């Protein structure tokens, strides 16, 4: 037995240090409480995830940078075709250099400027569509999931809409509205909310019949408040994850739409356009930078939001709050 241990034992035996406390039921009630707050814990867990913090900072600075980039000094126009003064011909396919940081594309536009302009466009679309998906999708999904009377109808309606090929809708929209930023946003808003609504509906059906909802109904709480107070808070984490995933998803759609000729007009740079242009030169290793730069930006954005979404979902799950 070491000396230290002996000291401890002695201390325990020393009655002066340990006296019986009086029983106090009120004090007993207080035992084991922490000053817990849901969002506080969520934040705490989230902040523990170093990768997520890094990516969050990265995305924040990316968004900031794409916004201020055009106002920085020495920036070129994303659409101006640079011409070689000697020959009068466009400076096509210039390798990355001091003048053109990311090189130029097949017609002599500055890839650096195009990539940031494209990122701006794509992110803007993705954010608008994301907000719409969340707003409209959640609204429809919540009502659909909560109000039983319309469930059967909504489910059938969903089956119908879901089975109409998106390509038809998109072609029609592009045909009626012409390819443009607005068309792109409308097209994606028109189709994107469906998945979100379905998702929210399923979640709500799962939690709808939990007893605390019955309790609220007994108390006469109106449906709107039951949805906002009892249901949506449970969905916040999954919803945030969906938003985070919908941003790369939307950009992916944009790439696909561009691929089938329904994308943005090419004079509006976007990641979809840049990638599509890049794909056409990917067989030429020397020009592959035209594919690599936008692909890297796209991948970084996708990975970041993807990881962020998952990290947030983990952090916001109260089961992880211990």
């Amino acid at each position, binding site marked *: 037995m070491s000396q230290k241990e002996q000291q401890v034992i002695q201390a325990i035996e020393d009655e002066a240090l340990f006296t019986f406390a009086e029983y106090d039921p009120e004090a007993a009630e207080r035992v084991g409480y922490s000053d817990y707050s849901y969002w506080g814990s969520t934040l705490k867990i989230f902040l523990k995830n170093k990768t997520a913090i890094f990516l969050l900072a990265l995305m924040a600075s990316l968004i900031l940078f794409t916004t201020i980039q055009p106002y920085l000094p020495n920036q070129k126009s994303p659409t101006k075709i640079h011409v070689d003064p000697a020959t009068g011909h466009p400076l096509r396919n210039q390798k990355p250099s001091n003048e053109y940081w990311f090189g130029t594309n097949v017609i002599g536009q500055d890839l650096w400027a195009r990539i940031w302009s494209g990122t701006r466009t794509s992110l803007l679309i993705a954010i608008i569509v994301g907000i719409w998906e969340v707003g409209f999708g959640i609204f429809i999904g919540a009502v659909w999931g909560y109000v039983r009377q319309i469930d059967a109808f909504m489910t059938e309606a969903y089956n119908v809409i879901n089975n109409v090929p998106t390509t038809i809708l998109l072609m029609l929209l592009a045909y009626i509205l012409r390819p443009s930023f607005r068309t792109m946003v409308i097209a994606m808003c028109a189709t994107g909310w469906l998945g979100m609504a379905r998702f929210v509906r399923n979640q709500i059906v799962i939690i709808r019949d939990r007893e605390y909802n019955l309790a609220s109904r007994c108390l006469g709480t109106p449906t709107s408040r039951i949805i906002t107070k009892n249901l949506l808070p449970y969905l916040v984490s999954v919803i945030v994850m969906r938003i985070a995933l919908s941003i*790369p998803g939307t950009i992916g759609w944009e*790439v696909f739409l561009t691929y*089938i000729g329904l994308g943005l007009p090419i004079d509006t740079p976007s990641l979809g356009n840049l*990638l599509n242009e890049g*794909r056409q030169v*990917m067989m030429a290793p020397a020009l592959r930078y035209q594919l690599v730069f936008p692909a890297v930006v*796209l991948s970084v954005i996708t990975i970041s939001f993807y990881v962020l979404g998952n990290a947030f979902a983990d952090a916001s799950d109260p089961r992880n709050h211990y």
Partner: protein
Amino acid sequence: MLKYSIKRLLQSLVTVFIVITLVFLLMRLLPEEGYFGDGYDKLTPEQRENILRKFGLLDPWYIQLRNFYSSLLKGDLGKSIIYRPDVPVIDIIKLKIPFSAAFGLAAICVSLFFGLTMGIHMARNKGRFWDKVWSSYVVFINAVPAAVYLLFIQLYITGLKFRGRSIFPMLFNRHDPRSWILPLISMSLGGIAGYALWMRRYMVDQLNQDYIRLARAKGMSDKQIMVKHVMRNAFVPMAQYLPASVLLTISGSIYIESLYSIPGMGGLLVDVIQRQDNVMVQALVLIYSTLGIWGLFLGDILMAIFDPRIRLEKREGAR
């Protein structure tokens, strides 16, 4: 159960009917030019009219729709009008389905096997090295545009040589088993990532549950717990989606089939929509939505079989 099934199938008939009618009307909104392809300017108005008449496009839309349905009742999906004029739709897809279905099924098996294995491996090594390795794979597959990495796979892997001969041919060839490998792998990459992620998440959830802790406390080995508790439960929700994905394998994969020249269904729908072959579009939409709805239905039944807690006839009340 039988009654329920019949009712549900009848319901889906109505759904399919509405879907087709809707698709039909949407297709009519597309411009007439699509029916003529290249030669529009070289055709006289009479000729254009003759062509439209031949395809039955001059009839009012409800007559066209009625014709489609009446031939459908006779078990005839109609004849293609633009994609391959006068060829029965059935003949066109009959040739294509086997390829897509074969590849699709094989890909599902491959991705299920590797995906689940990977997912389990990740969950058991949660937060450790292999979890991170596989996670980066999942992130990579989700982040990099498929159009890019699939093309790279095809170009570079088919370029590999063994004793001066390529190991994998560039294009699919029905007589050469080696040519099946790359498309199959390409098709499975996404699925593997999906299943792995799903399995990992599910397992991590389950492993935190009380009953697993209890089982551990009882002294069950990890392996027993995995097999007896986690895996069995994990398959229940999966059972719901499996039939739909199996059935829909016949719709093929647009991009991979294009790259490897696999004569399957992939992209057929986009093709016929772009060419405005209304009959084909309707037939395909009919097939796909029927399969989709059937898939969901079978999924529910499978779920009910696997999970005794679920009954198809829910007892619900309403305020």
